[in-house]
């Protein structure tokens, strides 16, 4: 029983991290169809933002709170820049976008190595995140709970933006029918930019959050990018809720597999499970059905 609860919690917190990373992808890949491999480097940018913020504001209790919006802004601006210079030229070539953004990611990593060095940088976590919270007889690390909170907060924010704001309507309209959106006066170019800004910004937030559980290095993003893409693929394109379920499912399944086998074998088995799942639902959990051939 103890094992089940503790692994459920471990899985949920891994799932929360996955969700944080995948949420931005759900916007840029899921809504816009852009495969941005540099998304991982936006995570890294968020993490280094947290590091730099702490250098500037030595009080670790407040630096994290400053770093969260700052990380969003830094990664968001990077994303905006990428969209305007590169991605906007290749909306009709999704696979090529993958390769170009991979190249951008390589360059960003090397820049980070040249600027910050190859050594990992540690970011001190605030004192108010130390310790454990006792709930129902179990102790949970507060940092993990905080990450879950951030993930849920970002999710709620993203969902609210998509559902209730004029911007969200524009995004959905653009996704569903680009030409039609254009003819009814939606600036699809503007919408693309804002969507990309938001999606990349979320990566920045995720990056800041990651500093609580891992050291900051230039290749921080590489270990998260592929699982995050798997989450979006398994969840189904165009539906945020699919990514949410997939993230937590992968996190929890991974936690149990890790417990019963080993971390690396769990990675392999998780991949096998995703492929097996796609046998049943090739388009992921949720799909937008159309009757057209394309």
């Amino acid at each position: 029983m103890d094992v089940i609860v503790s692994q459920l919690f471990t899985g949920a917190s891994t799932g929360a991290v996955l969700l944080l990373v995948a949420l931005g992808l759900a916007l840029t890949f899921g809504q816009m169809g852009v495969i941005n491999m540099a998304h991982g480097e936006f995570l890294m940018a968020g993490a280094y933002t947290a590091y730099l913020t702490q250098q500037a504001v030595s009080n670790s209790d407040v630096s994290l709170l400053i770093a969260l919006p700052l990380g969003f802004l830094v990664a968001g601006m990077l994303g905006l820049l990428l969209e305007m210079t590169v991605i906007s030229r290749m909306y009709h070539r999704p696979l090529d976008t993958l390769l170009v953004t991979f190249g951008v990611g390589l360059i960003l990593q090397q820049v980070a190595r040249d600027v910050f060095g190859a050594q990992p940088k540690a970011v001190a976590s605030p004192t108010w995140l130390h310790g454990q919270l006792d709930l129902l007889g179990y102790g949970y690390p507060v940092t993990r709970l905080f990450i879950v909170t951030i993930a849920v907060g970002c999710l709620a924010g993203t969902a609210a933006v998509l559902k209730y704001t004029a911007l969200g309507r524009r995004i959905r309209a653009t996704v569903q029918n680009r030409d039609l959106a254009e003819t009814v006066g939606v600036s699809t170019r503007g919408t693309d930019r804002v969507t990309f800004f938001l999606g990349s910004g979320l990566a920045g937030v995720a990056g800041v959050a990651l500093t609580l559980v891992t050291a900051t290095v230039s290749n921080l993003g590489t270990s998260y990018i592929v699982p995050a893409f798997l989450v979006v693929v398994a969840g189904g394109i165009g539906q945020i809720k699919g990514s949410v379920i997939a993230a937590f499912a992968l996190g929890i399944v991974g936690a149990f597999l890790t417990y019963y086998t080993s971390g690396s074998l769990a990675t392999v088995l998780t991949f096998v499970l995703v492929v097996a799942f796609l046998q049943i639902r090739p388009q992921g959990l949720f799909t937008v059905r159309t009757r057209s051939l394309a």
Partner: protein
Amino acid sequence: MKRFSTLPALNLIGIAALAVALLVLAPAVLDDFRLGNLAKYCCYAMVAVGIGLAWGRGGMLVLGQGMFFGLGAYVMAFHLKLEAAGPDAIPDFMMLYGNGTMPAWWEPFRSGAFTLFMVVALPATVSTLLGLAVFKRRIKGAYFAILSQALAVAFATLIISQIEVTGGFNGLSAFTSFFGYSLYDPINQRMIFFITAGLLVAMLLVAFQLYRSRFGELLIATRDAEERVRFLGHDPANIKLVAFVIAAVMAGIGGAMFVPIVGIVSPLDIDEVASIGLIAGVALGGRATLLGPAIGALAVGYAKTSLSETFPGSWTYFQGALFVLVILFLPGGLAQLPSYLGRLRPARKQKQVPALQAEGAA
């Protein structure tokens, strides 16, 4: 632009020229060290020929070729470790990482014939199973690319974790001989170069025949209009599967030759970053052309060595810039350059266009 028209003669001349350059010129002018490097690039070029087939012709962006490369490489490394250990003895690293006993499934790799068989059979089997699972369910495009990449991650993770049989993160090294020929003898290293270059030329000939065959046409048709191919009575999954498996086998053979040449194989040679790195040369040379992928891979391999020698770190910038610039501005690769430049001089072409349209209206 006659990119896809069959120009068999020209392609054959190209293969012949490359064969002469590799098998005659290079051994004459390069020292042993450089020739060894060239042999390594040839291994990458073999993978590249396969990527050209799967991606350039078949539209499947294979981001996990490192796995098939790795299957071939590790199979070969198993054999070479056993050869180094000597008859009835077990490889040194098993003493180090394991409990000093060798798993029974390692035993057959003592046989050279079995090893050579597995170099082909293992990538072929794995790619067939994977291809069936993926293509039959019509997983394609971005989904396929991401899955293939995840595959490379999973495989590299698996290799690292199974340290008692794979050497873990450090990989397998310290080989002494290759099918009985000492690896310390420069003459034998030259022989390995000739085998590798010969294999590359052979693969180009295979690709040449595939591209001019009806299958090659069907593959392009599948790439450009997969759904339409169904209405010709073909299951596109089968067409893609054939290309995918051939590409995997080419990668496996490249990996197998890589091991005696470089003297080590580790997860870093086969993981997702290495896999996507293999794409760079293909994109540079021209993904859909016959010779482009191989020549591009040779060039990128050379660039990597020279840049890493002179300015460490600059290679990463170069590789990143290569992806961005080539894919963004020259998606057809360098092979596209002549026709691209040709378009800048429109004087002659313009005459043909109205003629075409006039005929079209008739």
